């Protein structure tokens, strides 16, 4: 070993930039098969998706203006409802109607009875959603306005609440709202009960057993815990006064882990029109016939300039009825096939020799840089 270290660079593939490498080139040999394979795969798959989406029955009824009803059954305008059934049933579909029943107690919300029919049997499970429009759950201020640690049961200070929940953080007495924040405060609180009218073989109405549990993500349920704070330090949010008219006491306090509707609501939606699961019918099918949904109108959506609807729907493995996935795949499949055909034709009629020396621009006459 010599003392003087040579400055000679190492002869490694990395340093000499001679790393083994793959050089993909888009030539007809690779591009045309890609297009055709994509086409052949995508279009049929899309067909399957579309078919699956179409197996879902869906009933949407807008009941925003039910509270303005005069107490007699009112048949809905076309734009207020939508029926999507997979096939024509034995019964003709009936245009839904609703009727408002004011609450005898002054100041208490009235009831809305929505009546619709399903011409065919809707297979289980059937999901009942409420659907809101023009409600910006995705607003930057709104989304951030909650305290995860409060919902986790931790003790939070007034400062914490102000930091994460402002402006709905504490009342004038200094009691922290529980749960605090804009999201919780604006929670949707209409309730729904579904009845089957004149079920066959029976003259009585049967209450359908729509289950209000299992509607939230299991994780949402798990992460929430009752608060460890003293109930005296806490107050229900302003809009929750009806639910807790006397504020919180040691035995009457909000338990977030038990309120799945709350959990559903807290999973904010990304789009101003959204539906949220209210309950699910899992043990019985929705037979063909007439149904009534009794809604307690606690929630005044008109104040927010939006609408509210109920949605009754089944699901496929792709979720609820949405032809997008199917259509998109079909379209992409077709586009790819079409492009494949175009380029195949192009290649067939106007082939080009690969790596042709003679077509290098400077090989042609008068190219720059070419000494004459």
């Amino acid at each position, binding site marked *: 070993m010599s003392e003087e270290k040579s400055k000679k660079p190492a002869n490694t593939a990395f340093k000499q930039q001679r790393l083994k490498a793959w050089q993909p080139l888009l*030539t007809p040999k690779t591009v045309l098969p890609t297009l055709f394979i994509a086409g052949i795969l995508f279009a049929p798959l899309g067909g399957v998706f579309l078919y699956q989406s179409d197996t879902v029955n869906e009933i949407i009824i807008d009941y925003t203006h039910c509270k303005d009803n005069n107490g007699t059954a009112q048949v809905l305008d076309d734009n207020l409802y939508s029926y999507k059934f997979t096939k024509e049933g034995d019964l003709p579909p009936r245009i839904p109607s609703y009727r408002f029943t004011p609450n005898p107690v002054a100041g208490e919300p009235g009831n809305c009875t929505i009546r619709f029919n399903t011409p065919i049997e809707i297979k289980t499970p059937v999901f009942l959603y409420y659907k809101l429009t023009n409600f910006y759950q995705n607003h930057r201020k709104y989304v951030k306005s909650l305290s995860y640690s409060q919902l986790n049961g931790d003790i939070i200070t007034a400062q914490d609440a102000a930091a994460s929940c402002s402006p709905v953080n504490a009342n004038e007495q200094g009691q922290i709202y529980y749960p605090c924040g804009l999201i919780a405060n604006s929670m949707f609180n209409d309730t729904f009960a579904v009845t089957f009218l004149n079920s066959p073989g029976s003259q009585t109405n049967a209450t359908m057993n729509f289950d209000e549990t299992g509607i939230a993500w299991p994780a949402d349920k798990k*992460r929430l815990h009752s608060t460890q704070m003293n109930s005296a330090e806490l107050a229900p949010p302003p809009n929750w006064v009806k639910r807790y008219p006397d504020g919180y006491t040691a035995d009457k306090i909000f338990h977030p882990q038990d309120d799945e509707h709350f959990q559903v609501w807290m999973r904010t939606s990304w789009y101003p029109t959204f539906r949220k699961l209210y309950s699910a019918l899992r043990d019985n099918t929705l037979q063909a016939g007439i149904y009534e949904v009794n809604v307690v109108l606690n929630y005044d959506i008109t104040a927010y300039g939006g609408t509210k609807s109920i949605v009754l729907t089944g699901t496929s493995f792709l979720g609820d009825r949405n032809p997008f996935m199917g259509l998109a795949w079909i379209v992409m499949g077709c586009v790819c096939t079409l492009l494949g055909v175009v380029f195949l034709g192009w290649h067939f009629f106007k082939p080009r020799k690969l790596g042709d020396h003679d077509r290098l621009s400077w090989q042609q006459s008068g190219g720059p840089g070419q000494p004459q």
Partner: protein
Amino acid sequence: MFSDYSLSSINSEVPFESTEMLDCSTPVKLNTEKKSGFLSFFQRPKQPQTDVPRIIPMLLPPNQKFLGNHVSTAKYNPVTFLPKFLYVEFSKSANLFFLFISGIQQIPNISPTSRYTTLIPLIIVLLITAIKEIIEDYGVHKSDHQLNSRQCKIYDGTQFIEKQWRDVKVGDICRVESKEFFPADLILLSSSEPEGLCYIETSNLDGEVNLKIKQALPETSSYLSPTDLINLSGTIACEQPNNRLYNYEGTFTLNLADGKQKDFPLDPSKLLLRGAQLRNTSWIYAIVVFTGHETKLMLNSSKKPTKASNVTRITNRNILYLFTMLVMMSILCSVGNLVTSTKAGNHWSYLQIQEKERAKEFGLCILTFMILFNSFIPISLMVTMEIVKFVQSVMIDNDLDIYYAKTDTPAVARSSSLIEELGQVEYVFSDKTGTLTCNEMEFKECSIAGLSYATTADPERRPNSDNDSEGQYSFKQLEQHMDHSKHANIIQEFMTSLMTCHTVIPEQVKDSEEIIYQASSPDEAALVQGASDIFGYQFYARRPHSINCKVKDQDVQFEILNVCEFNSTRKRMSLVLKDPEGKIKLYCKGADSVILERLASNDLFEEATLHHLEEFASEGLRTLCYAMREIPVQEYQSWSTVYEAASTTLANRSEELDKAAEMIEKDMILLGATAIEDKLQDGVPDTIHTLQQANIKVWVLTGDRQETAINIGYSCKLLTEDMDLFICNKDDRVSTETFLAQKLSELEQDVQKHSETPFSNALIIEGKCLTFALEKEMERLFYDVATRCKAVICCRVSPLQKALVVKMVKKFSKSILLAIGDGANDVSMIQAAHVGIGISGVEGLQAARSADFSISQFRFLKKLLLVHGSWAYQRLSKMIFYYFYKNVALYLTQFWSWTMSCFNVFFTILPPMAIGIFDQFASARLLDKYPQLYMLGQKNEFFNQKRFWGWIMNAVSHSALLFFLGMAAFRQDGVFDDGWSGGQWWVGTTIFTATLATILWKAALITDIWTKYTFIAIPGSMGIWFIFMPLVSYVGPLLPWGIFMEYVGIVPRLFGNVNYWLFIILVPFTCNLRDFLWNYKRMYRTKSYHYIQEIQKMNLPDYRPRMDRFRQAVNKVRKIQRLKLSRGYAFSQNDSDQTKIIRMYDTTQQKPTG
């Protein structure tokens, strides 16, 4: 002769105007230049003082205050560093923008992102830059310090003591020894050589490597020891410091022994400049006149400028565009926000926005949106760019192909920020000596008595007989011819003339037989060396009136009778001597044209020799013709009196001497010719040819004379036989202008006539003409002519002119200019060009140090430009655009899911890095083989504004597709078969995944080659995301900061959901389908580089080598057919002074020790 040259005459005559041709206009130029560093600083205070002479009393403290000899070329000092550095950094628009953004991020409750997301990267970027600057400047400080603490000997009144350079003061007398550099500008007092002569080398100043002679005043040249110096006293009055290298005027007032004072004029021949080196002279005494920054060298240098690459400039501009876009979007969004929220009125009571805050809210909203969108302008891009460029420069440092084993020097990329500039060069300005040539002359071939000889004879021209003028003999055969050939006497005479007719000084190396030949002309040294080494005709001692030689180990002495000096008009030199036999002979060497005119009629060898000369010239050799005549004693005696008379005339002495010489230089016999090779560096012709193929124009700027320069031009294939040479060597402004104007119109007519043929003209311009051509009014004309020529050679240029030529082209053209040189005289040019390359060769490291890149051989330029440059340019443009694309695409789609935005760096940093470091659009081999690919960079094919907007449109369309497809797919949000809703975070994450996949897919599409690192980077980034996601979801909530709460429990919902997978497969495919087919467009809108890529992929054999051979053959035929006037005469010799050398030197005598 020494008339009273008073100071008043200096003042009244305005001495610096237009007497010296070479440099008179340059200082004017410089003043009009932008204030550059201390040049302007020192010129300002000088202005009022120009009329006042500088008075320097010897050995006494001066009345005037002068600058010390301390020199500082550093950019910063500890105090000025921070303000200067910050000022420079924040004058960059990108940095200013980031500062602004991080400023508004500090306002609480506005920022949707963390306060420090911009500030910390900004600080990191600045820190890296600062450290780089500090390291660089530290190096300068160190070398300054080294220079300042060099030792030199200063006279203290009794003896010479060692002092550091920094302590040298004006008025000091110093002693400089051989091979030492002068510590300041000095006036020569005396030297070890006779008559106060000394030799200096000034390559640091003007790049000329031949020795120059300086001579002291006869009155001072006798002070040869410290004791003598005690008696020396006087005053120097001279001009104020200025940057004119070739001017100096002053008066030396000497106190004579009798108490009287006498004035002696001082001129440049007595001035020794800082930067020059004492050679062949054991010591000198000299008095210091200018010190430190007032020396001519320092006044000629400029500070190292900060250079930014073209790509960086465009990037900065694009950042500005994006910034405008961002401001507009922020305002638009805020207005939208205001309008909708006003329209919604109370409807948004669930948001509880206070009515009265609207205005404030609006203002804050703009700022919020700005922060939100600020990631459009990626600060991480700056960091990534620095890293990528750094790695690329490491790659250059490590390239074996441009590593020079002989000197163990690898290439060094000093400023990595200019690396992509190497891919866009359009003009190369090259120095000659040391860059193109090795600065070694070699006696290669000769023609004697009509026969051609060479070191190694051309095998294709084997002679048929012993007397075949068509063939070529080897030097070995010459030895035989010398003994027994009918022209043996001619050969003898030829050898004798080689040995005697020159001005070389032999120097015996101590303790050895070896003799070193010192010459002011390297050609002569090579010839004498050749005669001695090859033929055994050794010249070993010079005396004032004779020279001693050994012919085949026999001592011979020649008496030198007369010398007729060489000068550029005569183009020849003659020597009249008396040989040992007592015959008087005239030996003459010079240009073929002047020698042939003076031959006796019917010369035997004229035709054959001429033929040989042409051959030599076509090989790029420098030729000289030799002739002789025996002079009858009577003729000599009569001529001798004429000559004596001429040499003593006072008026027009040199003309008289020329006339006298003319009388005797006639009826000569042609002996033959020599051919010297000015040895080119390896691979120079090939490199120049390749660069020209790559559409790079090569300009050679040299201090050499015109003939030499043209010669080198031919030998390095810069000039070819089919080129028309425009030689501009006029003496005055008007004729230069007419010449250029005429050539321009010719060129323009040429274009009109045959629009297809490319220009095959070359412009050769002399330094003197260049002075005029670079004047304001003529610049443009000169530029127009020069750029229309295929090659340009500027000869006899000063270092400043080199820089001015570069600056002139820079001024009129948007092209990227590269300057390459090896000496200190190239520094200004290297600094003026966009990219400066220094040859780290033998001539010191000044050029390499001030250059942006240094290589050790000119031929390495080829790989540096064609491969590294192209790659760097292509990689960086791809990377930068991709970076913009990815950020715009991400943020336009993702602004609602801002949590991710802070972390996008993790998932998307690798692909741009992989592209920036590993991508190769064509392999090194093919880039080298097809230099034409380089034109892509010159035309800025990959990094133009069109492409930028294309990429931005691409990003916008991708994000729009992602957004709207996402909307269509997840509008109802019912994606689970058990009825659950996904919610904001589910949808956000899904779209983010799809966006990421789109972006990575795009990266995959633009990647030309996939190394293992590319695989790690591109699919790997997707993998990182799939690891990161569960990590965040499961581990995030456990962390104490309460981050990532939104992602709790999301993983099983995502990965278990079929819609998620369908979406992230389909949507990126949809987005990239257009891009995929756009890439496939190569089949039908094929660009040249596409073919090359195919050639590379399919490993096609190419037929170009055969083509090359064919072309070579054609050239050879052409060469043979060619009957050009050029016969390759070139000789570098200073005018005058030769007699002095011959008459003064006595190499057999001991010199005074001083």
